[in-house]
């Protein structure tokens, strides 16, 4: 990325001048350019990101400003409600002259920092802040558009944003080229990647081996260690998670989720960087033809993330299928539902059906026979809708609603449809 963006000094000036009559519209326009970013930050005249701390957060019930870091509410908050006093207790940190750099390449799944990404940034901070007198800076390297507004709040000192279209989709080769340039230009002391299958795990390994370094993978803990070359020792999972490997921390680290606490006590500058010398090549041996449409209802049960499963307690199957469609859930069934011919055999969950690993398993009118429960052992969250508060499914469920399945499903569908409708109106 040779040039970040052409600057318009006048607009930037207006953006900084809150009293200027065009202030709001310019902010909105900048907003658009910055890829959905909020008006809480913009590019300063020196090419450095400027932040408007007042633009983040919202006013809490007690009149105190709150910053919601879950990213849930901020989207719906009016961003320029920023007149109030900043009640932010977090320490602002600006590392002007970093002693070294820690490069982090977050996954930015769906344009957002995942929990895993935030843990990585927490880990990066630990590495950067080892010597209070001579702190290092955390450089986040972001690919493509993203929706994060408060990059400084997760511990990022500097941001390198590669936003060209060629980086979109599955583009490991061009991304790798960009990262090798970063290595050449900035020579970070550490490179950190989330060890997540479809993100950092891939890119991190590519980069490490391109640079002929042996990374530590599956890292879940680091400890200071004076004997180690870089002053740290790490514990990494090996052999498919059955082994702990302790070794000196190398330059390249691929870490697991929860490898460190995410940053929440400091606010960092998240200053925009640009580097020269990145010449994106379109010459690639891998061509991304785009995502293939897969109907969520038809996704293989074993792979499904959200399953709506029906049993003997489902009386209206049309409504059930409709609900699955509206919720975007994959359909599952108890054996009774399959035996009775309401569902096909490949939809059966349980001992003699499929063992599922869904994040959310919504069991409608299923009693929770042991053979069925076996199949959902590895589900994260189980929600049950059932008439019988004493049945075993309720005991297994994280959330159970006692009542008639048809009515509750109908209410749920109504709400989701409403929510969708509302969103569409807003868009």
């Amino acid at each position, binding site marked *: 990325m040779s040039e970040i963006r052409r600057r318009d000094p006048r607009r930037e000036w207006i953006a900084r001048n809150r009293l200027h009559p065009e202030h709001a519209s310019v902010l909105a326009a900048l907003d658009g350019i910055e890829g959905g970013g909020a008006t809480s930050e913009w590019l300063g005249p020196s090419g450095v990101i400027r932040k408007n701390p007042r633009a983040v957060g919202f006013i809490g019930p007690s009149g105190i400003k709150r910053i919601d870091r879950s990213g849930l509410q901020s989207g719906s908050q009016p961003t320029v409600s920023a007149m109030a006093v900043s009640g932010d207790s977090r320490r602002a940190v600006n590392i002007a002259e970093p002693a070294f750099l820690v490069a982090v390449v977050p996954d930015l799944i769906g344009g957002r920092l995942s929990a895993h990404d935030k843990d990585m940034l927490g880990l990066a901070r630990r590495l950067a802040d080892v010597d209070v007198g001579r702190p290092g800076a955390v450089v986040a390297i972001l690919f493509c558009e993203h929706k994060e507004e408060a990059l400084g709040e997760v511990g990022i000192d500097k941001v390198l944003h590669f936003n060209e279209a060629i980086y979109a989709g599955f583009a490991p080769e061009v991304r790798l080229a960009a990262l090798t340039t970063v290595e050449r230009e900035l020579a970070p002391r550490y490179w950190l990647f989330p060890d997540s299958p479809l993100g950092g795990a891939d890119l991190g390994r590519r980069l490490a081996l391109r640079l002929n370094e042996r990374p530590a993978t599956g890292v879940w803990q680091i400890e200071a260690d004076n004997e180690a070359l870089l002053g740290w020792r790490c514990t990494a999972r090996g052999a498919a998670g059955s082994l702990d490997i302790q070794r000196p921390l190398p330059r390249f680290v691929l870490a697991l989720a929860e490898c460190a606490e995410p940053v929440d006590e400091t606010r960092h500058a998240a200053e925009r960087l640009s580097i020269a010398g990145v010449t994106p090549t379109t010459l690639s041996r891998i061509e991304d*033809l*785009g995502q293939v449409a897969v109907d969520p209802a038809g996704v293989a049960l074993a792979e499904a993330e959200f399953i709506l499963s029906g049993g003997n307690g489902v009386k209206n199957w049309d409504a059930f299928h409709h609900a699955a469609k509206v919720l975007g859930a994959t359909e599952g069934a108890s054996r009774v539902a399959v035996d009775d011919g309401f569902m096909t055999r490949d939809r059966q969950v349980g001992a003699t059906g499929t063992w599922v690993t869904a994040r959310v398993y919504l069991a409608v009118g299923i009693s929770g026979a042991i053979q069925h429960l076996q199949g959902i052992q590895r589900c994260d969250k189980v929600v049950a809708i059932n008439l019988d508060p004493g049945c075993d499914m309720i005991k297994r469920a994280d959330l159970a609603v006692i009542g008639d399945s048809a009515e*509750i499903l109908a209410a749920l569908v109504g709400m989701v449809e409403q929510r969708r409708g509302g969103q569409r109106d807003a868009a």
Partner: protein
Amino acid sequence: MQPEQQGLEVAVLVSVGRHPITGRARRAEQDARGVELALTLASELPGTRINVLHAGQQDINSEVALRGYLGMGLNSLTLLEQPEGSDAIAALAAYLTKALPPLVLTGTRAECGEGSGLLPYALAERLGWPLVNGLAAVETIENGVVTLLQALPRGQRRRLKVRLPAIVSVDEAGPVARQSAFGPARRAKFIVTSAIHEPDRELTQWHLAPARKRPKRLKIVKAASARDRFKAAASKAGGKSGQVLSDVTPEQGAVAILKLLEEEDVLR
């Protein structure tokens, strides 16, 4: 599928797996899926030759595991023999440079040893071949280009075109490996060649121990109000039995479910 002219050669790299509970040697889950993909390919593209490769030593354990792959319906396996603790990458790279199979399938991570998942990347780097991970299915192979589906979360797929020769790695999204049968496994032959022996010195210096249970992260509640703090404290800690809503209207129930679905971020 268009048959390639002389039939395609597919090399599948396999390792000795380890059962997660008992630690017994077995065929490695991902590698077996790789073999499965190759076998499916061979049945669709007549003339496909499958060369299953393993770098390591031959002993009772590895024999059990390797025969596990052979029982899927293979006649032989090429064993690049090297003593324990050797670096498999060098041996495999040397072999592949000579054999030059257009398509190499591998698992993503081994179940034994470091299991760092570096091998496919190291090979790709040494051979200078493109690499794709998360293979779900091979669609076509035409004119030296393979079209394949890569697995994305939630059962979604992405179509990729990759120029051969290439290395493609397989993980849990690959097709489930077929059963390994005793008869074919017993009959199949090992073709043994000795390979370079480069000990992995670094690994020997590390401290290896059975995995400890990772401490559960404490949910640090920094709630805005006393009410939130109270709610957080009162809500269940993970693992215990869940929340049961009885005597609620369907709407109230639906709200609770909707909230959970949103928290888990499964509604799209």
